[in-house]
């Protein structure tokens, strides 16, 4: 028996068709469950960062860990370079650190420990070490947090080589991907969009994993492919529903990971539709959308019916005031317009 659960969700978030009796939990809960299961399974997993151990994280993403994992969850001083860099040392010495970066914006504050150290150490040592490190935390725009608390900077980690990049969009994916990430032998950066923490969706009780590098087709459609991640997957689905009323059938591909990204699924979809839109919340200019678009052109030059459209934020910092913020970030209408431009 099938049940529509859109009523349980934040307006416009993905409407999943689920089986009666399936468990519905939030993105936060799913993520936390994934971390907890891995911590209970393997003593080497430790997790630390700012403001996580007393209240379970400022967005509540760690609530389920409290009291369950002893001192393997702990708070740190505000020392980003050492928070990130210590993950490297801990991994080299045999632990599996899952480190919270608090806000993607403050990755910049200690980023050298990531880009110059974590992402290069295995390579520089000629493969002497494996580095099972997960850096995770919130990114994205929410509630007028302004220029220093709204950024999404996944493109940087896709550009500089040495880390796998995970950008989940649903509770189900969050859990399956965080578990795969913790078990992965390589460094991983895992971005959780702030606006997604409270969305709800089906998550099985049984253990499952989602492999890195496998996209998910959120919605099939024959006319245009929209490639998105994280919050923009939800916007894309909304756009697709809207366009469907006009007779335009959009296929929505949720990449789920950016390094590696699922070229095969994307190419297959665009081969079918002949038209593509790439949508991300981060800035449009030199954003990862350009990489996906360029690759599609390289592979399907003769099959494309129209130029690929890229949807992203306007190229300015995030303004505070709601009307400005709304103008700056990409929205459903931007995807709708972009899809129409491909027709």
């Amino acid at each position: 028996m099938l049940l529509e659960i859109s009523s349980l969700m934040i307006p416009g978030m993905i409407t999943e068709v689920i089986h009666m009796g399936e468990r519905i939990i939030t993105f936060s809960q799913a993520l936390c469950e994934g971390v907890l299961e891995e911590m209970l399974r393997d003593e080497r997993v430790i997790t630390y960062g700012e403001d996580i151990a007393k209240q379970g994280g400022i967005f509540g993403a760690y609530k389920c860990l409290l009291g369950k994992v002893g001192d393997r969850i702990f708070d740190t001083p505000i020392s980003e370079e050492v928070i990130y860099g210590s993950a490297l040392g801990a991994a080299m010495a045999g632990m599996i650190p899952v480190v919270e970066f608090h806000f993607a914006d403050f990755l910049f504050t200690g980023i050298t420990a990531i880009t110059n150290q974590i992402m290069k150490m295995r390579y520089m040592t000629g493969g002497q070490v494996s580095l099972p490190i997960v850096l995770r935390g919130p990114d994205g725009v929410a509630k007028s947090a302004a220029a220093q608390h709204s950024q999404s900077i996944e493109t940087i980690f896709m550009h500089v080589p040495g880390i796998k990049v995970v950008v989940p969009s649903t509770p189900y994916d969050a859990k399956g991907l965080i578990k795969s990430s913790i078990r992965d032998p390589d460094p991983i950066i895992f971005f959780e969009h702030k606006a997604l923490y409270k969305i709800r969706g089906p998550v099985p009780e049984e253990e499952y994993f989602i492999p890195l590098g496998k996209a998910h087709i959120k919605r099939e459609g024959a006319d245009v492919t929209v490639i998105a991640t994280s919050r923009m997957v939800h916007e894309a689905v909304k756009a697709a529903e809207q366009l469907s009323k006009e007779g335009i059938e959009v296929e929505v591909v949720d990449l789920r990971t950016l390094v590696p990204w699922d070229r095969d699924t994307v190419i297959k979809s665009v081969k079918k539709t002949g038209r593509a839109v790439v949508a991300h919340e981060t800035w449009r200019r030199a954003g990862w959308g350009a990489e996906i678009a360029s690759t599609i052109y390289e592979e399907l030059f003769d099959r494309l019916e129209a130029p690929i459209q890229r949807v992203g934020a306007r190229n300015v910092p995030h303004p505070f005031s709601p009307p400005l913020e709304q103008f700056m970030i990409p929205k459903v209408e931007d995807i709708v317009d972009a899809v129409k431009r491909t027709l």
Partner: protein
Amino acid sequence: MRFGWEDIPKETLVWMYETMVKIRKFDLAAEQHFLRGEIPGFIHAYIGEEAIATGVMANLREDDYITSTHRGHGHMIAKGADVKRMMAELYGKKTGYCRGKGGSMHIADISRGVLGANGEVAGGIPIAVGAGLAVKFRKSDQVVVSFFGDGATNRGAFHEGLNFAAVYNLPVIFVVEFNEYASTAPAREMIPVKNVAVRAAGYGIPGITIDGNNVLEVYETARMAIERARCGGGPFLIEAKTYRLKGHFVGDPELYRDKREVQEFWKKEPIGRYEAFLLKNGILTKEDIEEINERVDKMIEEAVRFARESPYPEPEDALRDLFVDDTGYDY
């Protein structure tokens, strides 16, 4: 330390009282209107810490510089900013200090030397050092004060900033607002020394720990440090012990601390203490105090009205103010 309050001009003593009240009432209003959903974003209230901004700023000139924090309303007000334009900024309005682009966490009044609140912990320290460099090169006698929290003293920028200022003997006073918490983290767990002022010795500069809830003690200490810096004496670290009486941000569930602890600290809050001092020494009467409070209440009410009635910026304004000549950069 002896408090030569008798040497402080009466208008300064009164200004300090009024300023503290203004800060308190501004933040109470901000809290209230945030909770009512009128103010977007985050609000970090300075309630309980008013004596620090006030006692320091009483010694600064309009052309001196400061850098502030995410908890920056008090610094702005004490440096003389207009509460109307401040409140409008908190509301995200076009008439705000930053035309709605900054909000509470990025409020600034460059014309009065406020080089920005800052959403990044310790983010203002390098900026203050740079302003100090400018002053040094211009051979002027301005000074710079950088405010930041106890949590910020664990960031690399704190270390680099104090060291840099010491190396070039810059006129920068570093003021730690030691309010016992960095968000959910108690300072006693995150700072392995009782007084961070001891860190000053690592840079060969003076460091002092004072009662940050005693505005006169703040005033006297700041005066000494600022006069010293103005005469080329170089940097100074002041650690002002205080307490964050409200949550980290408005809406904080505060599960990390005991309500009784907070209640205990309310007894030491700076405005009541200073009021008692003013009354006891006949500097102000009860009537004066009432009059001041009423005046400030009206000022804040007006600020809220101004903010509410001001228009939002136009959506397309989002593309302005990035560069001096803005046109044609969004591609």
